[in-house]
């Protein structure tokens, strides 16, 4: 079976399910607007007129971080959430009884979430620009997309590790909660990593989100080329090469254990 066709099957399934909740789409759009409004007024309140954050207008700086974080949260928690949902709904066993590979089930389960989050990210940026006056470098959008894809791969590996925890321990929330907390503290989402001080800033360099937010802001907001972000991109690629195989290996171990224990459908 073509892997991509299999991914397409999951996307169609989840899109149809989500589309059946019509109000949710409207609520999601309204939610984005409200969230952006909060982050528009908070820096206005806290910072002096004309202040900049890392050379960018405050709202634009926040937009880069929170839009990226909202998107990456799907990669981080989406796998675990989807696996848990399949367990709760009883469909995981039905899928595992088919010839579909574990990797297809894992990646396929979040493919629609990624697409939907990419749409949400686009809405964040569009609303941020049209309504709240953020400035982006349109010419650097392709470069920003490359950063996004590479970051998604890295966070997918972490997300698959969390999904493996769901399969192994039947709970993965503490893991994603912990990882999410560390990422948000050190990753430069709500404040620059430089605010952490030199020692903690050194720790931040080991957090993939730090490189992601830096490269994403530099390209989308600062107009930087991909070439100027080689360092951060190399770090993200390195993290991806580590966590994706590790995540898939752990997923196989977790599924193997669930099959040995007979707990594939348990939650």
């Amino acid at each position: 079976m073509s892997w991509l066709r299999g991914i397409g099957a999951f996307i169609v399934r989840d899109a149809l399910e989500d589309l059946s909740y019509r109000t949710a789409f409207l609520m999601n759009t309204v939610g984005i607007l409200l969230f952006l409004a909060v982050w528009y007024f908070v820096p206005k309140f806290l910072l002096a007129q004309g202040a900049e954050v890392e050379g960018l207008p405050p709202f634009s700086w926040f937009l880069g971080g929170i839009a990226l974080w909202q998107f990456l949260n799907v990669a981080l928690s989406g796998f675990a959430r989807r696996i848990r949902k399949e367990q709760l709904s009883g469909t995981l066993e039905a899928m595992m009884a088919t010839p579909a590979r574990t990797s297809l089930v894992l990646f396929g389960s979040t493919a629609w979430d990624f697409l939907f989050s990419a749409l949400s990210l686009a809405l964040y940026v569009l609303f941020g620009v049209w309504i709240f006056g953020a400035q982006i470098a349109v010419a650097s959008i392709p470069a920003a997309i490359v950063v996004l894809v590479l970051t998604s791969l890295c966070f997918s590996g972490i997300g698959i590790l969390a999904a493996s925890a769901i399969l192994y321990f039947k709970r993965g929330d503490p893991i994603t909660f912990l990882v999410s907390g560390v990422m948000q503290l050190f990753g430069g989402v709500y404040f620059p990593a430089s605010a952490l001080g030199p020692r903690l800033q050194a720790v931040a360099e080991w957090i993939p989100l730090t490189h992601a937010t830096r490269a994403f802001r530099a390209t989308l907001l600062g107009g930087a080329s991909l070439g100027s972000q080689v360092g951060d991109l190399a770090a993200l690629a390195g993290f991806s090469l580590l966590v994706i195989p590790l995540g898939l290996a752990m997923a196989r171990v977790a599924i193997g254990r669930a099959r040995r224990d007979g707990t594939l459908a348990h939650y």
Partner: protein
Amino acid sequence: MTGPALETAGLGKTFVRRKSLGELARHPFASGERVRALADVSFGVARGEVFGLLGPNGAGKTTLIKILSGLILPTDGRAVIEGADASRGAEARKRLGLVIADDRSFYWRLTGAQNLRFFGRLHGLYGNALERRIAHLLERLDLTAAAGSLFANYSTGMRQRLAVARALLHDPPILLLDEPTRSLDPVAARSLRRFVQDELVGRDGKTVLIATHNLHEAETLCTRLAIIARGRIVASGEAGLLRHLGLHADRWRIEGTGAAPATDGAAFRVEGLGADRWRLDAALAPGEILDRVLERARAAGGRIHSCERVDSDLEEAFEEFIQRAERPQ
């Protein structure tokens, strides 16, 4: 391809029960209690056969079905599906269709057709070929009119028929049915059994393994049976097995006086009641008429005083048989 469609050799499954917090505190390094769900299960199913796994709740039927479908790994032995190890890879799963009596295994906010389309794609079917297959199966299972309805709105019978349709999407040679009529009313159950017998086996030549605790279903549908209790096969044989064991659905109790007929196996059991009285418990074979049993009862010269049907004893008899089988020798 020669050889059995499906066979198991020394199949066993032991689960380790999770320790409670108290046990964990008292014995942190001891492993949990081991629960033997299956032990030394060996049988083969020939191509085109309907093989029944008959047993009470908790006997290990579902565990066995899940091992055969690769959802659970065995602790001992192996299961082979048309030459492919059931525990390794996708080869065995391609040859199997699984029907589980769990309507949680569908997406309730998708239609019947959408559900089939998704699972069909997981089997590698796409485009017009998949659409034709779905239309064909919906028609065979009388679900065409409901194809565009949400699964959530399906009746229990419709859900079970959709489960059969899903199992047939990739046209597997072997079907595993785990208590397929458990939640169905008698009419729907009969219809499904007829579909299995006439369509799947009779017309399509499929091999079917059915797990059930319904004695009548096992007797009428299966060409061969294995009775499973506490994870072990306690009896196996041809279709007349239940009758031979005295577990046949059609049972009669005849009481008389005088010379008593002789016991002839569990299907013709005579018990003395004292004072020249006797009781005969007889199980009729399919097609056998009561008159022949009465003739045999009178053959010794005694007189018959009463004759009554005792259908309700079948489950009791089965329970008694299981208890006898589990007793240490």
